[in-house]
């Protein structure tokens, strides 16, 4: 008698937004081929409304999409846990964020994130999604240059004005879909930005086919965001044979070979691109071919991914405080990026149970956490370049997100923490490059090193360097640099209170 083997029970915890837009439906469908899937939609702003109380007895494995911070909660309950992080959401997460989930397995759709997780000691499987190429129109009109841009996140810097700087009036036609992800004030009249290019706009589509029709008329697609988790929009454009023009970041730069199957630009210091119908046609064809070649590879990877999830081991729970993690990790996460980082650092002792395979400083064996006795990240280079992934580990309180080349202090006060390594500990002076937002009076910025007032400087709207002497004892092995600004300002459509934007700090 044939006895049907019951499928493993898998709980899929996803962001309610993705589940609504069905942008990751392909993943649910793939999981359903092997597992009995129960979906839980989570709104990070209202976690209490989601039913996340399931236990090991109720599920065999949990897959957490994008909401990485939830993983330790399930690990503490002894549930095999697989995390599918998204680059655009988790790019700036500190090493501890990944180490708290070290007993989970990861599935990465971004190579950049994949190696970041591995660098933190996590186990990650790298996969690359490709949409179905046949589902899209491949014939393109190449006699003219016709662009499509969905202005989703103008606050990121990728807005119609920026696109106009990129292409000037080279295009014959340009369509701008002005449906923004956030309620932001309207920008300039886009019809005047592109010279004699024929510009059309839209704000709403009754159904998706209208969007598809518009895209089908274009042969250049401007990616709407600085980075992507997977990037369904630009991948569909590539599948349709469009030349995609996108910011040089993951996942754009993991699909687009620059000036071969699309164009990558840097938001900082970009100049006008020179496009021709022939080059656009070649890039569009290469893009379509990239998707066509990649699709069978992705289909083969699905099984590998399912095996990886299926084989996820049961975590070693030890003496983990499951109830504590249940409430506190979510509270810390929703309290903000800085609050979450501080929560992780304050609870680093939990790594003994959450990441039992990691060596800790306390064991005296060196190992993954080499940050020194106060768990401060080690600073080996003489310059901290703000706005880069490498600098983020040193930014403690009061900092906003990374922007190309600088980071704003959000509010009047911010701190940096690090342990200076080698000769740096004896540094005698500091050079800070910074600028201020438009303010009625010049900004005054006080710099305090290890609790001792070092100097106060005047900061204008132009980014310039200021060098100050450090206290006699130098930086020392453990350093906290605090910045106190006299004024803050709130720009229209801006939730932050900006005081000073720091580009770099060097020690001599």
């Amino acid at each position, binding site marked *: 008698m044939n006895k049907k083997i019951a499928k493993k029970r898998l709980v899929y915890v996803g962001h309610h937004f993705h589940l609504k837009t069905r942008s990751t439906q392909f993943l649910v469908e793939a999981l359903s081929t092997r597992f009995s899937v129960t979906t839980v939609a989570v709104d990070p702003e209202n976690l209490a409304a989601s039913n996340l109380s399931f236990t090991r007895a109720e599920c065999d494995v949990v897959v957490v999409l994008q909401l990485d911070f939830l993983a330790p909660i399930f690990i503490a309950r002894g549930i095999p846990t697989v995390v599918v992080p998204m680059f655009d959401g988790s790019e700036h997460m500190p090493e501890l964020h990944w180490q708290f989930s070290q007993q989970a397995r990861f599935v990465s759709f971004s190579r950049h994130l994949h190696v970041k997780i591995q660098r933190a000691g996590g186990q990650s499987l790298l996969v690359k999604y490709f949409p179905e190429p046949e589902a899209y129109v491949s014939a393109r009109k190449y006699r003219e240059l016709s662009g499509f841009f969905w202005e989703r996140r103008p606050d990121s810097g990728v807005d119609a004005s920026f696109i106009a700087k990129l292409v000037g009036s080279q295009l014959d036609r340009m369509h701008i879909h002005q449906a923004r992800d956030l309620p932001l004030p309207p920008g300039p009249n886009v019809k005047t930005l592109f010279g004699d290019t024929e510009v059309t706009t839209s704000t709403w589509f009754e159904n998706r086919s209208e969007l598809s029709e518009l895209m089908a008329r274009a042969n250049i697609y401007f990616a709407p965001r600085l980075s992507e988790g997977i990037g369904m929009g630009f991948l569909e454009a590539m599948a349709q044979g469009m030349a995609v023009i996108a910011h040089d970041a993951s996942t754009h730069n993991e699909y687009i070979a620059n000036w071969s199957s699309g164009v990558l630009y840097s938001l900082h210091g970009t100049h006008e691109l020179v496009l021709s119908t022939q080059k656009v046609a070649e890039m569009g064809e290469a893009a379509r071919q990239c998707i066509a070649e990649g699709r069978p590879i992705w289909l083969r990877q699905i099984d590998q991914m399912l095996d990886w999830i299926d084989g996820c081991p049961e975590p070693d729970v030890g003496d983990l405080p499951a109830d504590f993690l249940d409430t506190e990790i979510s509270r810390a996460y929703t309290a903000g990026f800085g609050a979450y980082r501080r929560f992780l650092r304050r609870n680093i002792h939990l790594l003994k149970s959450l990441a039992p395979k990691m060596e800790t400083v306390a064991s005296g*064996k060196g190992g993954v956490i080499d940050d020194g006795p106060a768990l401060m990240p080690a600073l080996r280079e003489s310059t901290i370049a703000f706005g880069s992934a490498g600098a983020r580990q040193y930014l403690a309180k009061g900092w906003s997100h990374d922007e190309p080349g600088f980071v704003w202090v959000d509010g009047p006060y911010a701190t940096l923490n690090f342990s200076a390594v080698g000769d740096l500990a004896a540094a005698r002076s500091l050079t800070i490059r910074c600028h201020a937002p438009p303010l009625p009076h010049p900004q005054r910025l006080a710099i305090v090193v290890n609790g001792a007032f070092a100097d106060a400087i005047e900061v204008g709207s132009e980014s310039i360097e200021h060098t100050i002497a450090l206290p006699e004892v130098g930086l020392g092995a453990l350093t906290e640099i605090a910045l106190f600004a006299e004024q803050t300002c709130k720009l229209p459509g801006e939730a932050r209170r900006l005081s000073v934007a720091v580009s770099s700090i060097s020690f001599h």
Partner: protein
Amino acid sequence: MLTAGRVGRKALVCDPVCVLPYGHAMPALNHYRRLLLPRFEDVKCLASKSFSEKLAVENDFEQAFTFLYNKYIPVMGEARFNEMVKAHPAFSDAFADPYERVATADAVDILGRHEIASEDTIFMPGADFYGIVGFLNACAARPAAQRPKIFIRLIGVLEAATPFYDDPMGELCRRIRAASAAGVRLYLSAETPAYADYVNEQTGLITYLTPYPETSERLPLPETDDFNVLCAGSARLDKGFHHLLEIMQGVHANPSRRKVLLTTQTLPVKGSEAWDSYTSQLYATSGVTLLEPVISSELMHDLYRACDIVLLPYAQDVYRMRGSAVMMEAAGAGRLCLTLRGTAFSRQVEYYGLGEVVDTIRDIPDAIRKMAAMPRDRMQGRIDQARARFFLDINAAYAHWLSL
């Protein structure tokens, strides 16, 4: 295979640098055990004390040498390494070369524990500074009747790996000369002709040529329409990882009839942050498959089976004297390689016809196209001819050298 009769009682195949669970060192110990077994009553393999205990049991290796090369092969944190070395009873920071004392103590212990005598042999298949110095010191301290023969195979990797000398290679050659003059029976060989001549010049001792022995059967060329290029071995900048994007862009600029596919490993995850953007672009390039930095030997074997040629865009300065284990593995598997002129092993590639040699990276795409256009049976014939000549010479060289 070596067919000469037994020449010794006991042989210790020693590699103090065999510490990683992957790479060439572990299989090399096994290969040389097989090579020496017909010639000795007993052959034992000795690896680093930091080698995996599980793998040591599986491979029947003895964990014998304190690992002194963490700066070059960082297998543990610096603090842990210092703690381990300082815990050695022979370590004392007061000496000019504190590691030498550790290495010598290890060698004395090994010779004593294995009751090594004059009819025995120490064989070092990939010799390192402290392995050599340790055994030379230990032998010099013994009466002549208890001194084994020492066969040292120099591969140009860790012979100069010491922080305590201004001219480490000069120091090593001076030690070798002195030990030989003092009656220690030393037999030298090197992996490439250029290196053998250099060592001879520095030591005054005849230095033979012993490339890596034949280790795998010839694999048939794949019957695929695509042309598969394998950039095999760990990805490193001195192995030309940073040239692969330019090479593939050159290939795509003028496509050949057979679509060219490139498979390569990626740089070690830690310490390669500056290459993330470059690697992303390589990942985005059509026809490129990126593998993890560390892969299993089974997968490596499958990759040799699946490829048409092996690409070795190695740095000419770094490999001026050095051989390439991958080139020799490729010859064993029956694959032609493509490399740059100026490396020591490129002379072997040219002399035996083991592949194509070009002058610059810019010449590589065109060479790939030419190799992709070569009829399969012609390529197979060329491989068979080159392989036969290469391994006949290698087998003869080992047979002669080990009979000394």
